[in-house]
């Protein structure tokens, strides 16, 4: 048995509206999904499990036809689809009116169902969201069960193939079907294919995982994205994450030193962007200390790649205590002291705004000095 588990494709989403790469990203979400289908066509995959939010919003009939045509290209693969909280089954959802090809099973309601695969002794459990929010822990009571008479007698020469119980689930936070990991691990499912959380994560090795969004959708979806492949080896299930996304959102942290200038900073960013991949979408975070007289123009870093935003956390390299002593009883001394109610010293839980304000003011006072 071999399956592909994916989730949160968000077809129809338009990431980073207003940025130059936005339209391209919208295409790439479809492209990557098509690519997965193409991969399945070449390899033999028994199941394609789509754990919710295949669409970013309410699917249109034409979109469903498009997806359906893709599923028709992989008639050997049984496709299981559920609606998540984004593409939930509204009363007049196109999902409800749609007729899927024979190889597709769509979970059509909030009541959990069990579906037996016609070919293999594999049972798929699942449901679909009929509301945007579900606060009940619907998966909690669910346990796998099998019908004894349905046991298949295997032929002598065939590798023994046991029953498999797979749960297709979406959610995991307070407003979207809370999921208790411990309860899950006791429930007895052989694999739980989860969706909703965009970051891929393994909850229990080879037994429960979020595949994560197929393509990252916004700046919070940093890191690798793709799908999970599962297969049995002598009756034991193995899984592996397969990166598939065209691009990543990358937090590029640059440690600035007092020796850095605008030019050296730009060079560093350029090199890093090249090595990480020019197609990626970056948030540049400048940390460390800059020379007090050095002011950076972070806006100019935006030309160096797909840059969403720049966070300048650099501080001028001042010795506060020395400065305070040298300027005590003057405006500069009093200004420094106004940020420290007690005594001059650095506390760890400083409000970032206060810290920034101190350095801004200090720099302005010293520069016009």
């Amino acid at each position, binding site marked *: 048995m071999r399956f592909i588990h994916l989730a949160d494709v968000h077809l*129809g989403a*338009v990431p980073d*509206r*207003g940025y130059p790469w936005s339209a391209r990203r919208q295409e790439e979400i479809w492209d990557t999904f098509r690519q997965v289908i193409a991969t399945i066509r070449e390899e033999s995959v028994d199941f394609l499990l789509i754990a919710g939010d295949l669409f*970013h*919003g*309410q*699917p*249109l*009939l*034409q979109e469903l036809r498009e997806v359906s045509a893709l599923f028709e290209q992989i008639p050997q693969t049984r496709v299981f689809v559920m609606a998540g909280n984004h593409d939930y089954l*509204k009363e*007049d*959802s*196109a999902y409800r*009116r749609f007729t899927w090809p024979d190889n597709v099973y769509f979970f059509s309601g909030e009541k959990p169902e069990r579906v037996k695969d016609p070919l293999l002794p594999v049972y798929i459990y699942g449901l679909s969201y009929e509301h945007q929010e579900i606060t009940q822990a619907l998966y909690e009571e669910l346990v796998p069960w099998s019908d004894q008479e349905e046991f298949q007698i295997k032929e002598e020469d065939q590798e023994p193939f046991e029953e498999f119980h797979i749960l297709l689930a979406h959610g995991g936070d307070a407003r979207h079907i809370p999921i208790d990991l411990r309860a899950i691990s006791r429930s007895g499912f052989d694999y739980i294919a989860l969706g909703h959380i965009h970051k891929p994560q393994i909850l229990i090795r080879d037994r429960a995982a979020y595949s994560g969004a197929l393509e990252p959708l916004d700046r919070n979806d940093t890191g690798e994205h793709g799908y999970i492949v599962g297969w049995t080896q002598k009756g034991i299930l193995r899984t592996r994450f397969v990166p598939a996304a065209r691009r990543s959102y990358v937090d590029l942290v640059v440690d600035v030193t*007092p*020796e850095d200038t605008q030019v050296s900073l730009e060079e560093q960013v350029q090199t890093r962007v090249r090595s990480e991949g020019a197609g990626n979408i970056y948030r540049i975070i400048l940390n460390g200390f800059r*020379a*007090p*007289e050095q002011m950076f123009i972070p*806006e100019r870093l935006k030309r160096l790649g797909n840059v969403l*935003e*720049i*966070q*300048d956390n650099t501080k001028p*390299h001042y010795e506060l205590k*020395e400065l305070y*002593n*040298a*300027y*005590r*009883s*003057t*405006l*500069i*001394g*009093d*200004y420094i002291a*106004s*940020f420290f109610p007690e005594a001059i010293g650095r506390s760890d839980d400083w409000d*970032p*705004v*206060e810290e*920034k*304000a*101190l350095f*801004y*003011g200090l720099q*302005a*006072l010293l*520069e*016009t*000095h």
Partner: protein
Amino acid sequence: MQINKIIIRNFGKIQDCTLELSDGLNVLSGSNESGKTTFYHFLRGMLFGMTRKRGKAAGKDTYSSYEPWENPDTFGGTIWFSTDGKEYRLTRNFSRTHHRFELTELDTGRRHTQRELEILLGGVSEAVYDNTVAVGQLKSVTGPDLTRELTNYMASCQGAADSRIRPDKAEQLLKLYRKGFMDQKEKRSRQLEQEIDKLHAKEEIWEKELTSVQNKLVEMVPHRDSLGAIEANPKKTLEKEPRLLRLQKAQRIYLLLSILGGMGTVVFLTLLLLGIPAQGNRMIYGFLWAGLSLGGVWLLVRNIIMARKASERRIRLYRSLDQKEHERKRKNRLREKLDWSIAQLREQEKELLSSLENVRSEYQAQEDLLYERGTWDEEIEALNLALTRIREASDAIRGRIGEDLQTRTSQILAELTDGKYKQVSLDEQLHMTVMDRERSVDVEQLSRGTIEQIFFAFRMASAELLCEGKHFPIVLDDVFGMYDEERLTAALTWLSRQERQVILCTCSDREGRLLDEAGLEYHELKLS
């Protein structure tokens, strides 16, 4: 506080130079400008220490300027001073490799730390020392520049307790930064608003489409309803037509009767020909036969007419039925067409509703982004906080010293000018006026000499007020170059009357001569 003795071990170009100072007025005449400046920086370094700055700033800092070329390990010296009735010796070595700080109380031999030195200096910081204790001269030469320099100087002292700090300039700079971030924020907001507008435009188009679809439905559905259900194909209705049935039935009866009549005619005719009936009855038989045959013929004729009629009627009926069937098919076609159109429209309606829902939730998401804090919000907030804090700190200083400073400056000026000028005032627009004996005079109208005097009075007042009662020795670095002899004598007389120690650095012998002429006591020092 008073400095008793200074040994400059190795500092800049001065090596192993010993100076014995007295209380009161000390006149240090050096052979050149650099020697005096070196002396001044040495004293500052001794009192407040000296460290090398980092990075690019290190190139031109005091440390590098005075680091000796030869024997840099002995970079430093010793001073003896007394304060609060106790005497101390302070030795420093500024060199990085042999760094040393040694402060000894001479009576007890006790060693003190740097922190204790700070306390002995009464909390006077390096910046305050630079501003007050060590007094230079105005740099500007021309009138308006001079006035501006003086007023800026005084404003800074009053608002920042340091003539070099310019809160107004700092404020401008901060506002400039803030503007930059606000522009960025604005740009992003505009970008998002554009996106939201695009989504709204889409929404509008779809809403219009939806309305037109729904209007079509409103017309079409009642029309379709009025047409009723689709009619099934009617079967054998012709045979069941009642009038035709009646006609056929009647015709059949006539046929039967005419057959019976015919049969009766044959029977009677046979009987007559055989002669069976009696003679007397023959007439009756004859009549009966004739009646029967006539009736039979009539019935036959009647039957034929009926059959003709029925067939005509049938043809007519067929014709009309054909018309009805045609009508039924036509109506059914119309119904089917309408049903199809309505289904299409309903489908369109649903698609549009889904699209609208999607676009609405999308622009809500974009609107949320609009109110999301961006990186610039934090910067703007920080800059605002910096501006407020600078303003607050400056106001506090002005409240603390501003008024006293003006009062004391006025007093000293009166003393220096023998009461000619009193009451210096500086308003918030940095407009300075001085009262002479009768009236208020704009500072621009005063002579350079008087402006120098105001400046001097102001510095002396600052030295007293900012050092909070600690009588720091005042170091005057060539400040009287622009004074005429009368004003210089007045200043020297004023200085010699002060309780505090004064170290007057000069390049000329004018000060010594005038002091001698006035019969004032002073101690002469030579910087070798």
